C-alpha cells in the first residue's frame, strides 16, 4: 500500500496562494475522475475548502506516487506550481492516515473544533465515490476517518465551547438559565453584535424579543429587523422587571442602568435571575451591578475573556483528541495491512504455481511419455518444492500482521517475487 497526501492549507500557505489553488465545486468531480485515471493511481480524493486544498491518492504499483500527482497538477494547468510548490506539504502512509484523521476531526482547522470541516470532507468523499475513484483501502481509510471524527466529538469537549462573542452570550445564558425555552429578551439600541446574539438566542429557544430605542420610530424599524416587538424607551424599567436577558448597545455617554435602579429592580423581580449583556462602549450598565445576587453583568471584554478561556479549553481537549487519533491511526494501519497481506499471500501462491507449470511444460519433451504414476510424482514433487519456498515468507507475513512495520516486509515479498506487475 502507498497512500499519499499532497496539499496546502492555512497552516502553510497565505490566502493569495490558497485562492489560486481553490477548486470550484463543479470542477472537483471531474478533477478527481481525471486524477484516478493517471497511471499508477488506484484511488483518489480531492478536498477543497477555503482553508485547504488536498489531493489524497493510493497507488498499488508505485511506492511513491508523488511524481505522478505533481505531473497531474502541472498538466491540469489550473495550479500555478511555480507559486505554490514551496507551500505544498506531502504526507505518506502512516502520516497521511494521521493527517486525514486530524483534518476530519477538526484538529487542523483554523478554529480548532469547528464543525463544518467534517461535512466538507464527507462531500469530497461523496464526489470521489460518485466518480468511481474510491473502491478499496482509501474508501476504508475515509469511512474510518468519519468514525474517528465522531469519536473525537463524543469523547472530548472539542466542539462544545463557544468561541465567538455572540455565541459566548448564548452559552452564558445557558449556564445561568439552563433551558432557554420561553425566555424573553430585551434589546436596547442596535448593533451587529446584538443582532447576531438575538438571532442565536432565538434559535436556542428564547421566545419574546422586545426592542427599544431612544427614538420610538427607530425602535419600530429595529423591531422589524429583529423580528420582535417595539417598546417605548420610557417603559424600559417596566420591561427590565420582566425580561430574562438584556442586550444593550446604545450610544449613551453614561450608564442607562445604575446600581441603585438595579437594586430596586431585583426586588421587583422577586429575585428572578437576569443576564445583562452590555456591548456598548462607553458602557450602558454599571458593572457594579454584577455584585448583586441573581444579576449577571457581562461587558464586551468579559465576553472576550470567556471566549479566550474557551479557546484554551478547546486546546486542552484537542490534546486529548490527539491521543485518540494516535490510537486510531495504529488500528487503521493494522487494518490496512491485513487487507494487504491476504491478497499478497494469494498472489505469491499463484505466481509460484504459474512458474511451476511453465517449467513442467518446458521440460515435458525431455521427460518423454510418463506413466500416470510418474505424472503424479512430478506433480507432487514440484508442488512440494513451491510450498516449501512459499512457507517461510507466508508465515512471516502472518506473524507480522500485528506489527506496525510489517508492511515493509509485505512490500519486500511483493518485490522479491515480482508480484507487483500483476
Amino acid at each position, binding site marked *: 500500500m502507498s497512500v499519499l497526501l499532497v496539499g496546502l492549507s492555512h497552516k502553510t500557505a497565505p490566502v493569495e496562494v490558497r485562492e489560486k489553488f481553490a477548486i470550484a465545486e463543479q470542477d472537483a468531480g471531474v478533477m478527481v475522475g481525471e486524477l484516478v485515471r493517471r497511471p499508477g493511481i488506484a484511488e483518489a480524493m480531492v478536498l477543497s475548502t477555503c482553508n485547504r486544498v488536498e489531493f489524497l491518492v493510493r497507488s498499488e504499483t508505485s511506492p511513491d506516487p508523488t511524481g505522478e500527482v505533481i505531473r497531474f497538477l502541472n498538466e491540469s494547468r489550473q495550479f500555478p506550481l511555480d507559486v505554490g510548490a514551496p507551500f505544498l506539504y506531502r504526507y505518506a502512509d502512516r502520516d497521511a492516515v494521521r493527517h486525514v484523521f486530524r483534518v476530519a476531526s477538526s484538529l487542523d482547522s483554523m478554529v480548532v473544533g469547528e464543525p463544518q470541516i467534517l461535512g466538507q470532507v464527507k462531500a469530497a468523499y461523496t464526489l470521489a465515490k460518485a466518480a468511481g475513484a474510491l473502491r478499496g483501502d482509501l474508501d476504508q481509510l475515509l469511512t474510518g476517518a468519519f468514525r474517528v471524527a465522531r469519536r473525537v466529538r*463524543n*469523547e*472530548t*469537549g472539542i466542539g*462544545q*465551547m463557544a468561541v465567538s462573542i455572540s455565541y459566548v452570550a448564548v452559552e*452564558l445564558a*445557558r*449556564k*445561568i*438559565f*439552563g*433551558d432557554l425555552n420561553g425566555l424573553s429578551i430585551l434589546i436596547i439600541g442596535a448593533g451587529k453584535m446584538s443582532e447576531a446574539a438575538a438571532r442565536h438566542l432565538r434559535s436556542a429557544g428564547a421566545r419574546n424579543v422586545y426592542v427599544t430605542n431612544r427614538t420610538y420610530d427607530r425602535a419600530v424599524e429595529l423591531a422589524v429587523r429583529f423580528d420582535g416587538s417595539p417598546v417605548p424607551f420610557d417603559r424600559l424599567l417596566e420591561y427590565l422587571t420582566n425580561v430574562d436577558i438584556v442586550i444593550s448597545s446604545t450610544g449613551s455617554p453614561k450608564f442607562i442602568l445604575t446600581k441603585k435602579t438595579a437594586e430596586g429592580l431585583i426586588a421587583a423581580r*422577586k*429575585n*428572578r*435571575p437576569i443576564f445583562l449583556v452590555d456591548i456598548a462602549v462607553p458602557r450602558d450598565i454599571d458593572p457594579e451591578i*454584577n*455584585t448583586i*445576587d*441573581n444579576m*449577571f453583568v*457581562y461587558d464586551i471584554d*468579559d465576553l472576550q*475573556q*470567556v471566549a479566550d*478561556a*474557551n479557546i484554551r*479549553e478547546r486546546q486542552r*481537549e484537542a490534546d*486529548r483528541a490527539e491521543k485518540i487519533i494516535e490510537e486510531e491511526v495504529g488500528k487503521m494501519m493494522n487494518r490496512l495491512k491485513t487487507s494487504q497481506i491476504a491478497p499478497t499471500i494469494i498472489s505469491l501462491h499463484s505466481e509460484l504455481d504459474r512458474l511451476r507449470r511453465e517449467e513442467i511444460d518446458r521440460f515435458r519433451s525431455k521427460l518423454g511419455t510418463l506413466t500416470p504414476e510418474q505424472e503424479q510424482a512430478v506433480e507432487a514433487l514440484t508442488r512440494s518444492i513451491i510450498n516449501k519456498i512459499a512457507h517461510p515468507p507466508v508465515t512471516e507475513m502472518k506473524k507480522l500482521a500485528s506489527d506496525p512495520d510489517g508492511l515493509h516486509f509485505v512490500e519486500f515479498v511483493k518485490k522479491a517475487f515480482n508480484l507487483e506487475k500483476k
Partner: protein
Amino acid sequence: MYEWSTLLLRGALVLYSLGLWHSLVTVVKRRQEMFRAALVSISVGAILHLASIILYGISRQRFPVYTLHEMASLIGFLVTCTFLLVYWRFKYESLAVFVFPTVFLLTLVGNLEGSVNPVVQRTLGNWWLVIHVALILLGYAALTLTFVAGVMYIIQEKELKSKRPRAFYYRLPPLNKLDEMAYQTMAVGFVFVTLGIIAGSFWAFVRFGSEWIVDPTIALAFVTWAIYLAMVFSRVAIGWRGRKAAYFAIAGFCCAALTWIVNSGAHSFVR
C-alpha cells in the same frame, strides 16, 4: 444472616466506589459513555445495600437505627435512592461526583461496626417511633441533596461572577437548574422532617408529658427545623434564592448533621 448482611454491605461499598470512580471520569474527562457504568454500579450497589439492611434488621430483630453505624448505613442508602430520583429528573452527571463521596463515607461508617455489639434497647419497639425515625431519615436524605445542590450552586455562581471560567464552569449544571434542584429537594425534605417531628412529638407527649421540650438536643432539632421553615417560607413569599439562599441551605444542613450526630441512638430523655 448477620455475616451475610456485612458481606452485602461491603459489596455495596465497593460498587459505590466504582460508581464514584466512573462518575469522576465522566465529569473530569467528559466521557459521557462512562456514566452508564456509574449508574449500573450505583443501582446494583443500592440493591445490595437494601438487602444488607433488611438482613441486618432481621438478624437483630429491630429497625436498624440504634447506633451511629446503623443510621449511617440507612441514610447512605436513602441518599443513594434520592440521588437516583433526582438524576432521573435532572440528568446532570456532575451531581454524582458531589453526592457519592458522602454516600461512600456514610456506608463506610456503616461498615465499621461489628466488634462492639451494642446493648439492644427496645425503646423503639413502637410504631410511632419507627415512623418518626423513618420520616426524619427520608427528610435528611432529601436535604443532603439540597446541600449538594447548594454547594454546586455556590461554585458555579462564583465561576459566572468572576467572568473567568475555569474547570468547574464547563462541568457543573446551569444555575437555575441547581436552584430548582435545591428548592424541590428542600421542599420534599422539609415535609418529611416536619411529619417526622410531629410523629415524634406526639409519641413523646403521650409517653413523657412535656418535660422533654427543654432537652438541649431537642432544642437544636427545632432550630434546624426553623431554619428550613424560614427558607421554604421566604422562597414561596418573596422568591428568595441565589447565593445567600445557597449559603443558608448549607448552614441548615450543617445544623441538621449536628442534630443527627447528637441524637443518634436515642434522645437522652428516652434512656
